[in-house]
């Protein structure tokens, strides 16, 4: 069985641990191959994203699945394909037979450098003076200088919290929404996934910031190995299950063409220890002491459907903004009324009426082609005159704009309606109620930009939120 190990553990053993050294050599080798070669670097990146144009015949390009519940299985198959190609190249170059892609656990509290790029990815040159294949100039220069990702960008607490995999009907979910009927990123896809993409890339033109170029950065694959690992972490937690629906389990993903092509269904990749995958992670323990959130394992109110699957009862929309909210280089806010009493019929669904309702904040139709920041932190009812740093307890969550540009292109593969996020704000709502600051007349949501570009290139961009709404269940 192959073992995928943490890159910072390897780097602590040696900055050029053999796994990283062979990775660098293989990247060099793969870059020399033509774009039409399914085992070439450019082809591998193009599978994820590629603008229409002169594609080699048979190429399975521009396939990446984002903003839906296929995000995790598709990227698992993608990573498996990539790893197989690199392992073969390592063997051909005389390296070990069992090379595996390391994962970058940027959330590891025990590793002081976790939020920095490992040194092997930051140095422009190898010790001998040759260019370092793992280095990319197309990143936020601060990351290449050894600065850290923001704490919020790597916070896995909100990502691991949702009990259900499927997102929709006003409720958050771990894995994403069921297409085409529902739209929305799962909690993991938003943060840390999107946030790390934008943090490494910067808000402008870094490779990691766009679907079509993300795979060109060698650190992309380590990032996705960690996302894949976090899926295993989530599954290992009590009460967390993958969808049972055939529409999800039987979805087939075909990557590459020719003899090396891979064609697998979700069902075939659910157990990573079994062929054709056959790997494990050196750790799939939930991060210790990093859960500010309570892990709730109570079952959701569900109804069985005839197909054997279960449908979660929709949450109720109780308030929404009636105008778009601009997302620029400065904080912006929106205020709207929230209905104090929900529909009567809904009360019969409540899991328990001893506690307060669950409250979800939905950030809908975020669109834009030019971004002022990689992400935004949301605060609820921030008192006038006080800054967000004064009230960390009113922080409702973070949204990452990774993928917004792709999802805003009307003619593109990603729908044109932008991105939609659903955040669980039950704790903040409870706190506001306790403080007597949950007025039915108005809820104020403040968007504070994070991951802004370097100071000398501040732009306001054109990103905006279509609507902010509150759901209750």
């Amino acid at each position, binding site marked *: 069985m192959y073992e995928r190990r943490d890159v910072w553990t390897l780097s602590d053993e040696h900055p050029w641990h053999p796994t990283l050294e062979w990775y660098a050599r293989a990247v060099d080798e793969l870059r020399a191959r033509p774009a039409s070669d399914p085992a070439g670097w450019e082809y591998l990146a193009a599978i994820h994203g590629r603008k229409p144009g002169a594609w080699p015949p048979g190429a399975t390009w521009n396939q990446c699945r984002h903003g839906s519940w296929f995000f995790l299985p598709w990227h698992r198959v993608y990573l498996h394909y990539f790893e197989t190609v690199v392992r073969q190249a390592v063997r051909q170059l005389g390296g070990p037979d069992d090379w595996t892609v390391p994962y970058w656990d940027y959330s590891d509290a025990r590793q002081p450098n976790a939020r920095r790029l490992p040194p092997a990815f930051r140095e422009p040159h190898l010790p001998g003076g040759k260019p370092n294949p793992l280095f990319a100039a197309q990143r936020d220069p601060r990351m290449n200088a050894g600065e850290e990702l923001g704490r919020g960008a790597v916070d896995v607490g909100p990502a691991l919290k949702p009990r259900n995999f499927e997102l929709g009907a006003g409720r958050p979910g771990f894995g994403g929404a069921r297409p*085409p009927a529902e739209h929305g990123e799962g909690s993991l896809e938003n943060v840390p996934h999107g946030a790390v993409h934008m943090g490494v890339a910067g808000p402008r033109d870094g490779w990691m910031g766009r679907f079509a170029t993300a795979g060109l950065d060698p650190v992309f694959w380590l990032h996705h190995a960690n996302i894949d690992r976090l899926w295993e972490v989530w599954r290992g937690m009590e009460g967390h299950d993958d969808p049972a629906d055939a529409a999800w389990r039987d979805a087939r993903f075909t990557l590459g063409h020719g003899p090396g092509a891979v064609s697998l269904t979700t069902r075939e990749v659910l157990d990573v220890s079994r062929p054709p995958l056959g790997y494990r992670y050196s750790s799939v323990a939930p991060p210790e002491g990093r859960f500010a959130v309570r892990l709730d394992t109570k079952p959701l109110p569900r109804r069985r459907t005839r197909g054997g699957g279960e*449908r979660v009862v929709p949450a109720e929309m109780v308030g*929404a903004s009636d105008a778009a909210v601009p997302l620029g280089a400065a904080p912006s806010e929106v205020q709207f009324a929230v209905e104090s009493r929900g529909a009567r*019929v809904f009360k019969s669904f409540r899991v328990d009426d001893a506690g307060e309702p669950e409250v979800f904040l939905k950030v809908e*139709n975020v669109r834009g082609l030019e971004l002022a920041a990689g992400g935004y932190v949301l605060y609820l009812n921030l008192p006038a005159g006080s800054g967000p740093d004064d009230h960390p307890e009113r922080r409702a969550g973070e949204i990452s704009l990774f993928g917004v540009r792709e999802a805003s292109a009307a003619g593109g593969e990603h*729908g044109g309606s932008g991105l939609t996020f659903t955040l669980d704000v039950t704790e903040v709502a409870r706190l506001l109620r306790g403080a007597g600051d949950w007025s039915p007349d108005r809820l104020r949501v403040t968007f504070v930009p994070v991951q802004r570009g370097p100071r000398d290139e501040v732009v306001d961009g054109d990103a905006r939120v279509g609507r902010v709404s509150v759901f209750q269940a």
Partner: protein
Amino acid sequence: MSGATMQAPAPARTAELRRLAWMHPEWWIVLAAAAAWIALAVIPHPAAHGHAPHVHAAHSFDDAEPSHFHAGHPVDGSAVTSDAVGSTGDARMTGGARMTDGVGSTGGARMTDGVGSTGRAGMTGGVGSTGGAGMFGDVGAVILRAVLMIVAMMLPLVLANVRHAALSSLSARRHRAIVGFVAGFLALWIPAQLLIEGAAAVLGSYAGWLASAGVIGLAAAAWEASPTRGTRLRRCHATAPLAPRGWRAHADCFRYGVVTGRHCVVSCWALMALCSAAGHALPVMGAVFALQWAGRDARWNALRWTAAVLVAVSVAGAGLLRA
């Protein structure tokens, strides 16, 4: 209420129904679509009217029609019904020709003419029908059929959007949101469907129904298989931000219906034209609907275009048998 209570309290059935209605606010759209299918099945179709034998009809449409059209006078059919058709058909053809000129515009007068030619399409496509006197012989009936077709075949395909409109609205105005959406959707689709019918009729009158059904069938298959269609289909399920209250809420829902309708027309026009060319035969409409329904499921993607070809072939085959 203690613990997880999915069990219904005292008046169990009422509570259960209320729950179902809460979970599926789109329930009445499903009922409307089912009713539209029933109506399409039971309302007398031109093909169901008594008329001359099929052989005769096929002959008159395949052979005599073009000359009739160019000569500008009725087919000299031996049967009385055929004669009557010819005379009405004459005026309609003129209208149909104007329709061709006016493609893209939706002038009321042209539309009426187009409708007339649609009646003709019903006949030409209607496998030897002579429905000039049938209930679809007049404008209102043709519009009614277009409405039924859209409600039966197209609304079920956008149930996700209907749900989005309902679930994104305050609970008190969920159903008003659905009404707004459906109004916008129909406001776009019905004129579009009438244009499609008109165009199919014109093609039928030039080329004969068999050839036109074949051509439209192949065009539909090609469109179904094209990558543009895939991109368009994805846009069908685009969502839109809806204002929560006031006239803006109504306007947003209506606009969302119009926008959805536009994407829907762009992705489904070819198959709807095939229905017209095939004389609105219920099996063809059923097959087209099943095809579109299956196309929503990613697992069926590869089969979609194959099925489209099959529909085209079956229509052509049916035509050959008739001829």
